[in-house]
């Protein structure tokens, strides 16, 4: 059963606090954090912004319901300006956590303490492009391509066997800027 209350958390935060410190509302498909992830973000300076997102995967899609909480650190690398639009190239690191005891092997009571390393937290390194039309700068679209820590480690261990590009995770999304 999906935890809709948790899913609404970003919106409640957004409504109550956007006037003080939040800069945008964000919606994302895929990118390892859910079929649909919703969240809020803060642009700290010209280069760095931080997103908090909550994603879900339905049982029909994933075989089981999966909830993910993610913190996405975005670093703007370059801005390409055009007469009618702009496109930003950025990189980032998403640290995400999948909720549920079965994913937290290191804390599961079935196993002795520290028998397994923690399985529920992953890191996703990504490159992204986001852009908006000059006349509609409140609406931004973005596209990201990333690789998680597992496949980076596997590639380092077996570079001739693991095709890193085969494990690229893509994401599409939309941001509404306050």
């Amino acid at each position, binding site marked *: 059963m999906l935890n809709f209350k948790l899913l609404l958390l970003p919106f409640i935060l957004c409504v109550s606090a956007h006037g003080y410190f939040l800069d945008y509302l964000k919606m994302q*498909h*895929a*990118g*390892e*954090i*859910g*079929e649909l992830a919703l969240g809020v973000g803060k642009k700290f300076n010209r280069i760095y912004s931080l997103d908090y997102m909550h*994603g879900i*995967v339905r049982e029909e*899609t*994933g*075989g*089981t319901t*999966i909830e*993910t909480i993610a913190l996405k650190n975005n670093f703007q690398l370059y801005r*390409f300006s*055009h007469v009618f*639009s702009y*496109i930003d190239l950025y990189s980032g690191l998403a640290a995400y956590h*999948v909720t549920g005891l*079965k*994913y937290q*092997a290191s804390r599961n009571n*079935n*196993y*002795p303490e520290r*028998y*397994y390393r923690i*399985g529920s937290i*992953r890191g996703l390194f990504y490159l992204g*492009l986001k852009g908006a039309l000059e006349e509609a700068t409140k609406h931004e679209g973005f*596209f990201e*391509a990333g690789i*998680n820590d*597992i*496949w980076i*480690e*596997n590639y380092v*261990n*077996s570079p*001739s*066997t*693991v095709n890193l*590009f*085969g*494990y*690229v*995770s*893509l*994401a*599409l999304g939309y941001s509404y800027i306050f």
Partner: protein
Amino acid sequence: MLRAFILLLLLVQSCGEFNVSPYISKTSNSRTNSKQLSLISNNEAAAPTSFKIAVISDTHNYYKELEEQVEYINERKNEYEFVIVAGDITNLGLLREYEMTKRLLEKLSIPYIVAAGNHDLLSNGESIYDQMFGSSNFSFVYKQTKFIVFNNNNWEATGKIPDLDFVESELASSSSSNNVLISHVSPEDRDRWNEAQRNEFSKLVSDYSVDYYLNGHDHNPTCSNFSTATRCTIGASVKGKILELNLSNTGVGHQHVKF
């Protein structure tokens, strides 16, 4: 400039996929063991009375080493009848880990079967194993030998683990000259089994004159006596060894070979 980005975007998209979570368990990749057992059965009539099988284990994310094992076995495909993988084909029980290992195992020129390891059952791994390979308790007869594969990952799997009634019933119904048990965890693992349980395994082995007990889990390849049987720990891929089992009407032998 915009065109260049669109091209770049299309290029990246052709490499990757919209992956909603690495923890998903739904797969259409199914019933591998059953399909492989059919291949094994099809080869049986033409097989010699004395034959060899290759046993590997704990491939985890040692993909380079697994690929080398596959190449080694393929170079000797006429020597081996089939391959047994004694579990731990993943680290975290994730679908893409399963798929990666299976992709490498599919390169084998001879059939293979996969037992469930403790790491394979983490996260949603139990459901993935069930879908991809089928039941984790199964048996088959090849020539004069009965192979009984069972799940003894008691901390990770759900249900009755290990199902010793299944093992006993398979041993009781065996009319083969050789009986070989295969599980991932050693029956002598003192962390997982208390003395009474270890004695129960030992009694089962002696009561039914089991010839060999093969297990993975401990990464160092070793063989020793267990009750009336010979128990071999296959060893992880990274240790550079494959266990060869030599089977005939007169008995079973083994050797660890370098690949």
